[in-house]
């Protein structure tokens, strides 16, 4: 494979700018890149473009995925995506109105009571509606996989480092809650396996249900232990801030967010007064940022080896943004698959090229730091 891998510091580790040191890319850069592709995917139903986006995601993830607990998020998202495609197609076939002329087969139609007139269940199925269902499903699935890719490229706890200091404690709570679920699942597996040792041979599901008590007990106990450990290590230490100051800052942040929400509402609802659109959004953003900054300055926390934002970060985020903008500005007729009449998907060159460009991060981002034992102790092997 021509892709640079984490274990092979070959010629790909140098890109004209001298030897690049292994480090993790800034998590926000990965998110910007993945969200750019997500926006692009949301604008098209062309299976070729969607397939290209999926391919780009897979290649970049393969090249730059760290060895962490979240690395499995990508394959999980792929599996979920498959389920979404199937479900969406089934829904279209069973519930949707038939589109087009190419009849595939006929399902038995369920007669529905009077008050549900307009809802159809079963009946004629056309190839067109199968296609619409499948491509719509593919679009949703691709968007899901974008999020999965971002999660597996940068674990949520790393994203936490980039959260403004004022929101840090909320962020920790969210991340702890996120890691609680995988732990619980591991416990559940262990406990239901142990049930066999007690001579219980019920099915998997009822074993799961019966063991839920001990599993939840264990999870709760672990959470309490974690809370005690965090408290002992200084989580939530107050800086030199008076209650009055803290309240003002919290008020500012809250007001700012409300402003942003109102602004977004104004943008999307055409009936809303103009003033509620961009001006409100901007005002809200300014107030929120000011509040966060003020609160952040007072926070006693410091950051250990904060992620740096350098040219690979700029490039990665830029590529993502460029892809998104291209797909937003490009006429949607060229991006949507034509189903009436049925036609082979046509490929517009420019959107396709921007998607290919999004493959770039696999090459220009720095290689990952190796978590294997370095040669100092592994040299004897």
């Amino acid at each position: 494979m021509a892709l640079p891998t984490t274990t092979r510091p070959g010629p790909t580790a140098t890109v004209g700018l001298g030897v690049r040191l292994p480090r993790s890319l800034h998590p926000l850069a990965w998110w910007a890149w993945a969200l750019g592709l997500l926006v692009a995917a949301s604008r098209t139903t062309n299976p070729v473009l969607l397939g290209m986006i999926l391919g780009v995601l897979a290649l970049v993830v393969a090249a730059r995925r760290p060895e962490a607990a979240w690395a499995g998020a990508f394959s999980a998202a792929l599996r979920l995506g498959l389920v979404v495609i199937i479900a969406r197609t089934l829904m279209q076939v069973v519930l949707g109105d038939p589109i087009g002329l190419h009849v595939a087969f006929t399902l038995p139609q369920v007669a529905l009571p009077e008050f549900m007139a307009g809802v159809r269940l079963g009946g004629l199925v056309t190839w067109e509606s199968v296609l619409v269902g499948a491509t719509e499903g593919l679009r949703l699935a691709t968007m899901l996989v974008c999020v999965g890719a971002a999660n597996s490229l940068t674990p949520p706890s790393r994203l936490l480092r980039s959260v403004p200091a004022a929101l840090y404690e909320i962020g920790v709570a969210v991340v702890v809650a996120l890691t609680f679920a995988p732990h619980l699942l591991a416990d559940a597996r262990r406990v239901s396996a142990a049930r066999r040792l007690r001579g219980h041979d019920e099915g998997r599901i009822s074993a799961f249900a019966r063991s839920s008590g001990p599993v939840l007990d264990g999870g709760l106990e672990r959470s309490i232990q974690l809370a005690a450990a965090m408290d002992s290590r200084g989580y939530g230490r107050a800086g030199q801030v008076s209650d009055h100051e803290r309240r003002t800052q919290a008020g500012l942040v809250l007001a700012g967010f409300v402003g942003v929400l109102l602004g977004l509402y104004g943008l999307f609802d055409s009936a809303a007064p103009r003033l509620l659109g961009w001006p409100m959004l901007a005002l809200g953003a300014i107030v929120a940022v000011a509040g966060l900054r003020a609160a952040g300055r007072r926070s006693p926390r410091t950051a250990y080896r904060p992620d740096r934002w350098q040219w690979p970060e700029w490039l990665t985020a830029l590529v993502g943004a460029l892809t998104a903008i291209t797909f937003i500005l490009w006429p949607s007729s060229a991006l949507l698959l034509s189903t009436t009449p049925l036609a082979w998907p046509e490929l517009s060159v420019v959107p396709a090229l921007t998607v290919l460009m999004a493959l770039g991060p696999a090459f220009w981002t720095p290689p990952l730091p190796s978590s294997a034992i370095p040669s100092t102790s592994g040299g004897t092997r």
Partner: protein
Amino acid sequence: MTSAVRFEDVSVTYDGADRPTLHRVTLDIPEGELVLVVGETGSGKSTLLRCLNGLVPHFTGGTLSGRVTVAGRDTRTHPPRELADIVGLVGQDPLAGFVAEIVEDELAYGMECLGIAPDTMRRRVEETLDLLGLADLRNRPLTALSGGQRQRVAIGAALTSHPRILVLDEPTSALDPGAAEEVLAALQRLVHDLGITVVMAEHRLERVVQYADQVLVVSGGQVTTGTPAAMMAGAPVAPPVVELGRLAGWDPLPLSVRDARRAAGPLRAQLRALPPPADPTPAAVEPRTTEDPESGRIRVRRLRAGYRSVPVLREVDLEVERGEVLALMGRNGAGKSTLLSVMAGMRPADAGTVRMGGADPVTLKGHALLSTVGLVPQEPADLLYATTVGRECGDADASARAAVGTTAGILSALAPGIDASRHPRDLSEGQRLALALAVVLAASPTILLLDEPTRGLDYGAKRRLIAFLRTVRRAGHTVVLATHDVELVAEVASRVAVIADGEIVADGATGTVVRSSPLFAPQVAKILTPGPWLTVGEVADALQESG
């Protein structure tokens, strides 16, 4: 000498408890000492430790009267987070207390909370990585570490904030002998090189008592303090080295193998003339001629097993005869638990055959499984799911098709006096193990598998377990136990197999295997080598017989 910690007339009563957990404790811990806290499970050791950084009462609730001062700060007015810069706490289960995902971030977490300048943080992380020998692991995910590595990371994470007092709750109880030595050596360095005060609770006295400057004995909420030698002379339970010293009448009482060996010259000479201890072969097993000859035998051939792509066991061959007690030893993560779970049929073998009493354990179900193989897992609570001890016993009787009261009978022999209406989770570690053992033994399995049975057990509970395992063995059960506890192995095992890197690297009679390795040798063997003695009991018997 300034005092690092001072307790003045401290009593702690938890909400709903009818008597105080700590009662009128007054003590003084000078700076730079290594203090060992000992006592039975449930005696209030953990409460005492948690008083040191204010978790009691700020986090746990309850009422604290009197005054605890840590480096001059009163814990009544300082919650744990405000004491984080002077007290570092390492809990019993390090994994449960980890906040970050990789080693380096975990080490920095406490400093980030304290707001230490970035360049200082960077330097301290590097220093700590070196101090604890973690430099190679800096980018490893915390979940991928072995037990000893986790414990060192947890200690390191507490150290980076440069606390003046380090508090550890059973830092070596889950570790293999090698990893335990690593951790204790690191603690020694901290005390001697940096002058940190270390307060540590530990059941495995044989590992730590020689390092202590002061011993606190917690019993029934009362605390007595003294030098290790003074406390050990009168203690009802003591490590083998001390018991041997008492038996031989050595004065001063030795606390380390080194001191004992120097005093043991005459004893060694006296013992040389005596016959070696009887080899504990399964001769005493009652014959069961009517039964299937395969009953109680274990046959493992060319076994391979693993998790996804990682092979844990490769090519394991093992045969165990009926009535043998086999101890599986080896470092954390060597594959002991995997081997036991394959033997119990909890996971299939990737290749090779496993026969337990002639049957493939994966195919056994329900009562057939219960009467053939019983496994007590590392976390005995996994086996328990009823809401009271009484109901748990009733369930076990029913699924074992045993007479009502069988389980309760075994339980009261193992750990007398457990209230049947209590929740299994509220029991002490030793009581919970006893309950799980009773539940498994109710069906009278011909083969009993135990995974780390002495983790978290105090000496009293351990002694009862040893006596019980001996009766189980006399009744003709085959026992396989995976353990790090060399003293337990010396007491009960007839054979030892050492697993390393998924293969059995040594297999033979306990005396031979255990004495050939300094890491696995029990203290008595180290003191009396080249003599064949392994336990204080054997020496006492031999001396008695010779008059």
